[in-house]
Structure formats: structure tokens, C-alpha cells
């Protein structure tokens, strides 16, 4: 790889647009480790995210073993987990630790950093026509804070009291008091530190994305000519910048409660055989556990849009490109992202309808929660409108994009049940919720990640392409398997089976689904191993995949395909191309595609064939 890249470096040198440091060969460290090239940082985010994804999903397989076969013992668990699975049976507190870590890793490390971090970094400069981010240095820091967050979380897995085990939402008092749970000891301190680092990473990244999109667009790239990917990354960054600091403050207050004797979240507690008092021996009073829930979900809910918006953007882009049709209703798509962004800040308390929240406040959140279904519906109809009478090429990225739309519909509709406070009473914290958010957020965003990886793989790895056959196998097992895992969970929810139960045998009401739990776990294991098809494809193609023969394999309109096959630091060897049009002019005036950087007179006076050869 090193030799290939140095070839492009020389090309760049011809032009004077670049900083002096690129004139000589970069060292291994500055090129691959502390790189300030947005494309390398994107790669770092992606590879780290993929590693975390395998860890996070492996954890879910482990706790699915417990749920399906609560009476069996699995020696391999003892091999992997030691004392936490003595005799091959998971200890209940480690079951909860696995659940907690699965949630934390998947939501933050995989679907926030791995998805938004990767593709915001890769695509923002390439699609708006910029040499790099506004601040490549902060961008580099953003990755390394994420890396640090990951390392702290990794360390927490190996300490003697175990990692945090009070759920990814970290509700106090459970997560404030070491007496309440073994994971609430040092494991939770590390969890909070890790989240603090992660939030720093996310803020550095987000500020950079916003600044870059607002200030560094190439000539002619007006906001309404931006690809929908960029709109999505822009609003994702806005959401993150405005909501992550609130979680940080919530986490810091929790640290204070844990270590400095404050009682922001603690009140009237009797634990470990005595009332909880401060150093002066007075009972801690006046704190509110519900305050933490407000602070947590003020990020927590925008967070699910932070996760899903980039996926939506990439799906829109890929569906238009591979259907050879303009995205249906470009401005409606932009407006719906804007509406989702605004409403995302007004719905957080729908996670708290039965938390002891004032019912009147709850009702306001019902209104906004159900209203957010409107822009979501607009997006779904527009995606379907986009493929209608298209000329769809089923590359693996298109398959995942269509899979995304299906999952988003299925999971979105169950949100209408849960978002209506009265109906939420019976459904809250049951498997109905597990099914809902895994389908609409986890799987859909995961599919978005695959859309991005399959589509932009050549831009990530020096023009190398992934193996499509393996992509097809990966898609079909994952798509069918996903439904087989999560669809039946609605039925568990209809029986009122609560989530976060180590086993169901204590309750006659809940212990009726032995067979279905086995079925779900088998499906989960199959889908888990199917991801190795992706992993092998990913690693092999990054190193040895066939190189693109043309600059623009998808005949796409957007600017990233005008860069060289192996773009160096600075992206374009010559001047950055100016932009004359929107990104989705497919099939206009009978021309298959009209790249953004071509002026009208370069396209229509000549016939189509000529234009194509010119592009190639």
C-alpha cells in the first residue's frame, strides 16, 4: 500500500495547493497512526468500529446461549470468561455485564463512531470538494479520543469486579452505588471515564464536520446541491454537538455522586444494611434518579437519530445512484431530515412515561413523538418513489439499502405503539421494545454501515473493490436472519415478557417461550457467523481486491468519483472541480447521468457516447 500511495503523492506535488509537509515521504507513524488525512482517519474509525462490532455481537451470542438454554452448561464460556462462567454457566451479574457492554459498544462504538465517524470523515471532503477537514489536527484527536475510550472500556472487561452491569443507560442509584451491584464498583467508574473520552471525540468530530460543510464547499456547491449524505452528516453533527454535552454533565454528576459524596441522584436510600449517609452521618436526601434519566435521554434519544441519519443519507444516495433516477423529492428529503433533527430534541421523555414523570409532561412528549413519524414516513415514501420505474442494479450496497428501507418501516411502525404513553404502559421494558429498537435503530443503522462499506469501499481502500458474490451471500443471510431474530420478539412482548431477565423460569407468565427463545438464539448464531463472510471479504478485498478500472464504477454524479483511483492527501491532484448542478441528475434529458462538475454545454451538445468515453 505504501508504494501505491507514494505514487499519488508525486502527482499532488505537481500542484501548489498543498502544505509543504506533503512534499516529502511521510513516516509510517504520521501516515498510518497519527494521520491527519481524513481518508486515513475514516479507515481508522471503520476498522476500529468493525473490531468492536465483532466483540459486541459476540457478547450478544453469549447471552443468547443463556436465554435459549438456561439449564445447559457451555464449557467454552468458562474458557472465555473464567470465573464469570464457572462450570460453563453464566453468572447472573456477568449476564447483565454482557448485556450492558453489548448495548454500550453497539450504540456508541459501532453505530456512532464506526458509522458516522467513518463516513462523515470519508465523504464530507470528497463530496463537497474540499482538500480535507477544516481542522485535520482536531480530526486526528477525535479518532484518538475514541481509541482511548475504547481502551478504557476494554480494560474494564478485565478488572476483578467486572465491567459495568447496570444497563447501557447507566441509571442511578443502581449504577451509583457499589453496594448495589459488583459492576457498579470500579467497572462503572471506567465506563463513565470511557464515555467522557468518547464524548470529547464526538464533539471534536462534530464541530469539524459542521465547520467543514459550512465553509469549505467547492465553487458552485450550494447547500441545495449537496448530496443527501452530506445533509445527513451535517444534521447528525448538529445533534451530537448539542446533545452530547448534556450526557457529559449527567455523567460527571454521577461521578460526583459516586466519589465525592454528593447526592444529585440519590435520596432516601437504605442499602447494605444501613441508610446511605454523607460523611457527617446525615441521610442523603433531595436527589432525583429521574433527573439522570432526563439528562441521559436528552442525549439518548437524539443519539438514535445520530445513528440512523447517516444511514438514511447513504441509503438515499445509493438508491438514487443505482436506480439511475433522481432521488424522489430532494428538497422534501432535506426538509424531513431537518424536521427529524428538530423533533429529535423534543421527544426524549418518551423513554420515561412510567418512570414517575408528571403525566402532563408525558402527554406533550407523546405528541412530538408521534409527529416524528411524519418526516419518517415522507422519507420512506420518497425512497419507494425513487426505485419506482427505475433501472435498479442490484449491487450488494443496493440490496442493503432496500433491506434498510424494509427494516426502517417494520421498526418504525412499532414505534407508534410505544410512543403513545398509554400503550407504553404494558409494552414498556418488554421484548416488544427490544424488537422495536433493534430493528429500527440497530439493524437499520447496521445495514446503513454495510451500504456505505460496499458502496465506497474503493474510496476507502485505494480503488480496490469488494467481492460481490460474498456480498450477496452476506446480505441474504443477514437480512432474512435479522427478521428471524427480532420478529418473534414482538410475540414475547405481547406476552409481557420483560427485557433484561437472566431467566424466565421464576414466572409462570413469562416462561412460555422456551422453543421460540431457542429459535431466536439459533438465528442469532447463524447471523453472527455469516458476518465472517463479510469480514473475510473486507480484509481480503482491502489487501488484494481487484482494482477499479475506471474512475467512476457506479457512473455516479457526486464529486468523490472525480478523484484519482488512489487519491493522495489533498484528494484532487489538480484544482478542485467546481460544481454546476445538484447531485441526482440521473436520466435527465435522456442522459444516463450528469456529473455535478460538468457544465450544461459539456453534456447536451454532444451525444451520450462521447460524454461517456470522455469521462472514462
Amino acid at each position, binding site marked *: 500500500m505504501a508504494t501505491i500511495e507514494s505514487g499519488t503523492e508525486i502527482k499532488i506535488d505537481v500542484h501548489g495547493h498543498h502544505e509543504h509537509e506533503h512534499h516529502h515521504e511521510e513516516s509510517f507513524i504520521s501516515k498510518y497512526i497519527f494521520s491527519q488525512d481524513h481518508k486515513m482517519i475514516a479507515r481508522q474509525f471503520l476498522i476500529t468500529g468493525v473490531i468492536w462490532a465483532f466483540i459486541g455481537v459476540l457478547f450478544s451470542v453469549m447471552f443468547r446461549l443463556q436465554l435459549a438454554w438456561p439449564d445447559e452448561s457451555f464449557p467454552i464460556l468458562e474458557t472465555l470468561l473464567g470465573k464469570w462462567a464457572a462450570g460453563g454457566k453464566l453468572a447472573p451479574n456477568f449476564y447483565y455485564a454482557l448485556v450492558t457492554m453489548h448495548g454500550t459498544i453497539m450504540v456508541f462504538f459501532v453505530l456512532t463512531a464506526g458509522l458516522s465517524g467513518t463516513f462523515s470523515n470519508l465523504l464530507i471532503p470528497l463530496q463537497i470538494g474540499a482538500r480535507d477537514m477544516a481542522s485535520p489536527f482536531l480530526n486526528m484527536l477525535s479518532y484518538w479520543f475514541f481509541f482511548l475510550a475504547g481502551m478504557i472500556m476494554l480494560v474494564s472487561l478485565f478488572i476483578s469486579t467486572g465491567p459495568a452491569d447496570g444497563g447501557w443507560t447507566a441509571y442511578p442509584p443502581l449504577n451509583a452505588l457499589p453496594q448495589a451491584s459488583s459492576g457498579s464498583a470500579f467497572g462503572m467508574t471506567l465506563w463513565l471515564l470511557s464515555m467522557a473520552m468518547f464524548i470529547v471525540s464526538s464533539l471534536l468530530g462534530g464541530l469539524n464536520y459542521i465547520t467543514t460543510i459550512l465553509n469549505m464547499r467547492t465553487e458552485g456547491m450550494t447547500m441545495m446541491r449537496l448530496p443527501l449524505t452530506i445533509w445527513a452528516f451535517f444534521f447528525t453533527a448538529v445533534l451530537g454537538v448539542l446533545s452530547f454535552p448534556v450526557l457529559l454533565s449527567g455523567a460527571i454528576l454521577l461521578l460526583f455522586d459516586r466519589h465525592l459524596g454528593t447526592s444529585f441522584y440519590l435520596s432516601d436510600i437504605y442499602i447494605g444494611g444501613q441508610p446511605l449517609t454523607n460523611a457527617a452521618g446525615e441521610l442523603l436526601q433531595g436527589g432525583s*434518579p429521574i433527573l439522570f434519566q432526563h439528562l441521559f435521554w436528552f442525549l439518548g434519544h437524539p443519539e438514535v437519530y445520530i445513528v440512523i441519519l447517516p444511514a438514511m443519507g447513504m441509503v438515499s444516495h445509493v438508491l438514487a445512484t443505482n436506480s439511475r433516477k*433522481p432521488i424522489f423529492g430532494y428538497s422534501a428529503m432535506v426538509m424531513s431530515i431537518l424536521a427529524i433533527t428538530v423533533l429529535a430534541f423534543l421527544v426524549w421523555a418518551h423513554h420515561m412515561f412510567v418512570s414517575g414523570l408528571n403525566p402532563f409532561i408525558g402527554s406533550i412528549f407523546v405528541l412530538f413523538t408521534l409527529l416524528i413519524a411524519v418526516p419518517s414516513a415522507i422519507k420512506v415514501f420518497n425512497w419507494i418513489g425513487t426505485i419506482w420505474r427505475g433501472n435498479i442494479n442490484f449491487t450488494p450496497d443496493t440490496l442493503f439499502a432496500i433491506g434498510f428501507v424494509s427494516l426502517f418501516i417494520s421498526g418504525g411502525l412499532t414505534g407508534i405503539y410505544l410512543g403513545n404513553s398509554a400503550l407504553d404502559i404494558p409494552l414498556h421494558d418488554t421484548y416488544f421494545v427490544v424488537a422495536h429498537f433493534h430493528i429500527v435503530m440497530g439493524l437499520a443503522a447496521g445495514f446503513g454501515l454495510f451500504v456505505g462499506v460496499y458502496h465506497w469501499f474503493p474510496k476507502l481502500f485505494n480503488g480496490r473493490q469488494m467481492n460481490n458474490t460474498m456480498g450477496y451471500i452476506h446480505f441474504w443471510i443477514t437480512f432474512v436472519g435479522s427478521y428471524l431474530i427480532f420478529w418473534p420478539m414482538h410475540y414475547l412482548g405481547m406476552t409481557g415478557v420483560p427485557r433484561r431477565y437472566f431467566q424466565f423460569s421464576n414466572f409462570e407468565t413469562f416462561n412460555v417461550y422456551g422453543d421460540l427463545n431457542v429459535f431466536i438464539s439459533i438465528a442469532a448464531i447463524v447471523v453472527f457467523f455469516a458476518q465472517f463472510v463479510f469480514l473475510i471479504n473486507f480484509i481480503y478485498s482491502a489487501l488484494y481486491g481487484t482494482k477499479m478500472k475506471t474512475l467512476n464504477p457506479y457512473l455516479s454524479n457526486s464529486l468523490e468519483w472525480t478523484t484519482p483511483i488512489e487519491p493522495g492527501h489533498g484528494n484532487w491532484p489538480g484544482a478542485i472541480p467546481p460544481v454546476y448542478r445538484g447531485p441526482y441528475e440521473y436520466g435527465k434529458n435522456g442522459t444516463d447521468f450528469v456529473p455535478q462538475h460538468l457544465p450544461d454545454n459539456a453534456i447536451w451538445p454532444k451525444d451520450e457516447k462521447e460524454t461517456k468515453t470522455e469521462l472514462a
Partner: protein
Amino acid sequence: MLTTFLGLSIIALVLVIVFQIAKANELVASLKGEEMVINRNRVNAMLFLLFLIFGMIGAVWSTFHYAPKFLPAPSSEHGTWLRNMFFWTLVATVPVFIVTHIALFVFSFQYKRDGSRSAFYFPGSNRLELIWTAIPAVVMILLVYEGMRNWYKITGPAPKEAMVVEATGQQFFWTLRYGGKDNKTGKKSVKLINGDNALGLDWEDKDNRDDFIADELHLKVNQPVLVRISAIDVLHSFYLPHFRVKMDAVPGIPTQFWFTPTKTTKQMREELKNPNFNYELACAELCGQAHFNMRKVVVVEDEADFNQWLAKQEPAYAKLKASSSATPDSGNTGQTQQN
């Protein structure tokens, strides 16, 4: 161990085979060019259509197959309202689910690239956007209206005649206290908790004197009950699945939920033809390592049975007095003597 090793080896072998076939297949594809692209589009488009057909059949079949395992019809008044609301939400969402999925997969099937046609240039339609903004908005407003109507009835003030029961969550069990003859649960504080006084009841408060603590949650059929919910260590959630009741128990912040049970345990046993059926109380908010184990039996009975049970309950204060006169040194005697 051996089976695990064997299993993983087989999976590895399968992955190697998949990899080799895929590599060869890709080579063929690059030689055949457009012909292979069209071929693959046909296969994937057909698979989407099959997925739609078998997915819909599977969804309908499995729903009917598992429906007998769903919770039986609600045993509370508000549960019936929620059942209706669930039905109307189904009416609003299931057609959308079916129509959008048919559109998505049929269009995928029909408009695959097979060399026969080119795409139809159609960048959008404001009229369509308006239609599919307005319809969901109206439907949502109707659902919000239906939801609010029920929400305010459920969360509104409890009827005056409601029986008061207090549920206190603690790792890892519920403690149930009844208001006794005066139907009032008196003051308590975690400062007063000791071996003889598990809830920290304040004996100075006369409302506490007739309160009793019960092993099971006994309720009178058709008599509204107001549950005062609290916790003394971490969050718990008071969850009665058959009555569609759920409310968090929060240390320091009292919460409540009132409802009217409408079916006795006996009736349910007959209806479900299950002589062992019991209503159950569970915890629905992760509270630590034995969260899954906070079970209490709930018994709904007619007035005669309830009164019979009630007569057997002894107030906690009386119990304490009896035991403290036997052992004068125990816990709370100082306070009891003051009265």
C-alpha cells in the same frame, strides 16, 4: 469442548469454501460482463419477491400460531381500553406495513436492470409529497387523541373509595403494606429501618398503627385499588402484566398507579382451563443481579374471600408489640414506649 472445537472447525471450513467459490464466481463475472450483471439482478430481484411472499405468509402464520401464548384479555378496566387502543393502532399501521412492503419489493422485482428499459426521469412531485405528509399527520393526530383520552383517565386521580396498598421495592423483593382499617398508609423513613421494622414505619404516626404487611397482593374484584409505589435502594418497577400495570419505584420520589381488577383468580383459572394459574407481580426495571427473581403472587377474589383473608392479617404494630414485650431489648422499643 471437543464438540465446540469441531463445530468451529466446520464453520471455518464452510467459510473457506464460500470464499473460494465467491472468488471463482467473481472471475467469471468479470469475464462475462453485462450478461452476468443482468443475471444477478434477475436472481436478486426474484429473491426479494420470494422474501415478500414467504415473509408475509410467515408473519401471518406465526402470529396466529403464537397468539394463544399472548397475555389473556386484560383483567382490569383500563386494560380493556388499552386493548381497544392497541386494536386501532393495528388498524392504522398494519395496512401501511403491507402496502409499503409490497411496493418496495414488487418495485425491486419489476424495475431491476435487465437491459430491456431505462429509468423514467421523475425527480419528485409536490402534490404527492403533500398527500403523504398530510395523511400520516392526520392519522397520528387521531392516535394521539385516542392515546391522551386513555392516558388522562389512567393517570388521573384515583376514586375516593380506592383501597390503598403500598408496594416497596428492594433488592430483590417487594414488600406489600395495606393501609388497614383507616385505609391510610402512614409515614415512613429509611432512617427507622431495623430488624423489626423492615419498612422504617414511623410509629408516632397513628396511621401506621393498623397497617399490615402481606405476603401476597390480595385485591377485591371490581374494587379500585391505589398502589403507592416506592423503593428504598435502587430503581424497581411495579409490574402486573395481566392488569396492564407498570410504574417505576423510585427512591425518594413516591409514585402511584390506580386500577380496577375485573376478574378473580378463580375466574381466570376456569377461563384458561389452568387450575394452577396465578396473577404475578414482577419487577420491570433492571435492579441488579437477581432482578429476574422479584416475584409475588397476586390474588383477586370476591368480597367474601377477601374479607376472610383480611381478618387473618395482623397489624405490624401489634406484632411488634407482642414480640417486644417478649424481648424488651429489640430494635424500636424506645419509640414505641414514647407513645
